[in-house]
């Protein structure tokens, strides 16, 4: 569960990604697909209400290309 003082970002390892598209199906609010099926991730932190869904997307990715990164609560 996200701790109140941190925020998290969804990121993809483009080498591992094979455009299965489960992430875009599970969490379309954050993941869009380009014309070749590869994920375009929205900028910004994951909204808390979508965090669990984001975790599921990370788990379901057949290539384990998706991961969640913790970013500092105060921006750079």
């Amino acid at each position, binding site marked *: 569960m996200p701790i109140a003082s941190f925020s998290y970002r969804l990121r993809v390892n483009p080498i591992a990604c094979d455009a299965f598209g489960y992430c875009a199906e599970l969490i379309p609010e954050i993941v869009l697909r380009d014309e070749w099926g590869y994920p375009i991730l929205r900028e910004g932190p994951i909204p808390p209400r979508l965090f669990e869904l984001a975790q599921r997307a990370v788990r379901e990715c*057949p290539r*384990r290309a998706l991961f969640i990164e913790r970013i500092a609560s105060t921006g750079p």
Partner: protein
Amino acid sequence: MAVVTTSQWLWYTTRATGIVALVLLTTSVVLGVLTSVRFETTSWPRFTFQDLHRRVSLLAVVFVALHVITTVSDAFAPIGWVSVVIPFTSPYRRLWLGLGTISVDILLAVTISSLLRQRIKPRSWRALHWLAYASWPLAVVHGLGTGTDPHLGWVIVLVVVCVAAVLVAITWRLVAGWPAHAGARVTAASASVVAVVALAAWTALGPLRPGWAVRAGTPAALLAGSKKAAGAQPVSSSTTPAPSGSARSPATSLPAPPYSASFQGTVTQQSLSSTSVRLEIKAQTSGALVALVDIAIVGTPDGSGGVTMQESRASFGPTGAPTQYQGEIVGLEGSRMLLSLANQAGSLLHLRVDVTQSGSQVSGELRSISEIGAERGFGDDN
């Protein structure tokens, strides 16, 4: 061919769970291919197929586990826990069962690696998962080779449907993404075609032909003692050795005739009424043939210590199934009796029994004979 067992429900469960497992494994393979080719419909997004594939696979594993447990627990066939993981160690249809063992080994490896998926390298997981493509055909061949039901019509239809489904799935898998890795795809396609043709040919010439149980390597002791099997010849021990661990379970079948043995036992007399008595001989053979014989004669005493027979009952069978053969006395002269018995399947057995009595102890010799009256011995002495 009739094979008798005392633990019938275990055996039925083994066969049933085996068939269900095959159907589930087939479904799992098809679903797995659907995820590979990124199949989706308007109401079923892609990730649902991965989810389904996982759930069906786990269910398949459960049924395979039941299949394995019931097989090993069943004392009838000599399959131990070792044979579950180490192939070709079972005296029961060594080769065909061994293929099932390999299939289970692969299934175990694939299942464990998938449960630990987040902790192992993606490339390792993938390489291992591809082995699943080998597990399925091994299961099919195992089922046809080890199973006792291939001759059933609906079983054959089911197997054909499963093979067809997997064939269609594999074709789809090889076509999607063409022409990348064209060489490998062509190799896989040719191998699949060859495999299916070989499977069909082998099934037609092997399991579907009579006598498969023997050719597959069913241990001699488990085959029915019927004249139909093995052509009324003593089954040679070149196929498989006698079941090991027979000390664990009582003998449940007789050897194929002819056989003879000496026996020892007791005789009791019981008065049923003023004019009828009941004599009962209970004896056990010794030596190579271990069996129990029970003969009951109801009749009237003839005044000189003997009995004039009016009715009789006889049973004979191995110690694990003493009433396997039941019948009556069809010939009685002095101390020699001729018994005519039959088992549940209707196979006939004729025994010649020579009895010597001393007090309440009896001893003697019994011998199986092929046809009443064919033996010159009856009516003569010696």
